[in-house]
């Protein structure tokens, strides 16, 4: 136990280090379409009970309080902060932004479903609506060769003028997935998230209904990272890291002093 202060301070260092990684990741994704910033959650580690309150200190008196020594901190999880990012107009008819809750559904290679807020879609060589990685958006939409004036309604209905017809033809309707606890979704990279036990199962439905957001064609949702906020967090983390390392060197000096003097 004599040097356990060293280990407690070490947990602080590790947690600050991980928090810095989270901040760095947020800053790196400042221009990522549909990115949601993460927040690091710290939690106290278990306490060690060295003496129970009420234990006899002498025959007449009992200790009023226990001696509960904390064992430090751990980075327990990251919460994704799902506030809406700014919508910016791009003019590309296949760019879609979600104004409100919900996710686009995408089929990953291997058939697994993933969800994304990034609506920078395009038409593949076969004519399907795909993500930049070439994964098909679900429900599958096929845009025939030569289709013009593609329009996406706020409820996800996609229509276009086909060659030889002056009346718009409906090509299908995009549905959105929503979750009880969107913060519990697992990030997969490439802007995709997948459902977990914590997020609950996906509830599929039309855009603009049951609390789901509506689709805005020709726009993209920017990342919701706020540079100033991240920089302030970064300074805070850096200072905390410094003080923790000072503590380690202080305890180290104490032990060295004891070694040399005794």
């Amino acid at each position: 136990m004599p040097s356990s202060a060293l280990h407690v301070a070490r947990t602080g260092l590790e947690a600050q280090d991980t928090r810095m990684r989270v901040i760095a990741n947020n800053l790196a994704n400042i221009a990522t379409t549909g990115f949601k910033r993460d927040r690091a959650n710290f939690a106290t580690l278990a306490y060690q009970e060295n003496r129970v309150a009420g234990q006899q200190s002498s025959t007449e008196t009992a200790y009023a309080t226990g001696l509960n020594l904390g064992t430090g901190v751990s980075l327990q999880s990251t919460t994704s902060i799902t506030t809406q990012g700014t919508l910016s107009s791009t003019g590309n008819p296949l760019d879609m932004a979600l104004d409100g809750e919900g996710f686009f559904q995408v089929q990953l290679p291997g058939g697994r479903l993933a969800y994304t807020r990034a609506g920078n879609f395009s038409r593949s060589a076969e004519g399907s609506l795909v993500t930049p990685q070439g994964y098909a958006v679900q429900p599958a939409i096929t845009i025939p060769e030569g289709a013009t004036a593609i329009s996406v309604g706020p409820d996800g209905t996609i229509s276009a003028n086909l060659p030889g017809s002056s009346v718009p033809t409906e090509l299908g309707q995009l549905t959105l997935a929503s979750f009880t606890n969107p913060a519990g979704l697992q990030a997969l990279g490439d802007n995709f998230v997948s459902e977990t036990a914590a997020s609950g199962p996906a509830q599929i439905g039309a855009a603009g209904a049951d609390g789901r957001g509506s689709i805005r064609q020709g726009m993209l949702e920017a990342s919701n990272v706020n540079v100033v906020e991240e920089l302030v967090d970064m300074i805070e983390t850096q200072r905390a890291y410094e003080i923790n390392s000072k503590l380690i060197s202080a305890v180290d000096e104490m032990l060295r002093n004891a070694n040399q003097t005794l």
Partner: protein
Amino acid sequence: MDRLIWTAVTGMTAAMTRQRVIASNMANAQTTGFRAEVLQMTPLTLKGPAVEARAMTDAAVKGAMMTPGVMVNTGRPLDVALQGQAMLTVQAPDGSEAYTRRGDLTVSANGLLVNGEGFAVMGEGGPITLPPGGTYAIAEDGAVLRRDPGTPEAAPAEVGRLKLANPAGTAIAKGLDGLFRVIGGGILPSDAEARLAPATLEQSNVRPSEVLVDMVEAQRLYDMRTKLVATAKELDEGGASLMRMT
């Protein structure tokens, strides 16, 4: 051999324990709603007919500093920071009622309202379960409001109410799980006057500048006591050399 050496050693041990408490506080300088722990050192004397020349040092965590931490606006509707001395009521793992200042709430997959440490937040009638779908907000008096997606034009309806307790006048203590409980058992009544700040989180109340000062102080005290042990050793050697038959 004089007993001075033992007295000095208890002092050394206490200073090291103090350093550990400081380290634990500093490690939690960014834990939401954390309350810094206070270590108290007390002299232990033996009452008796002899002169009171020796006081051993005993250190114990006396309790937690209850000064409020800094409030930071997060913009997340389920983050709450409690104003004044009010506390959130949560269900500890053993099912009992406990209190915390940590208000980063989320809705778990089965609709239970939990805080950042995963403890279920309690209302007047036990843990709060929220119906799925819709957007939630928490009002200043602890009412959980849900805007029904089906009727977006209707006013948000109250679907639950956080039990905000006020520990004023009751002795509470921090337990091994970091939660506060009433000393000797029992629960706190809910306080209708208690208010919270929505979309805000309360930071830890550990003050880094204070940590630095306390740390230096503990370090120097330890060093002085080390010197005492060394001095006691010299005295003892002096006494032993007098006894030597050469």
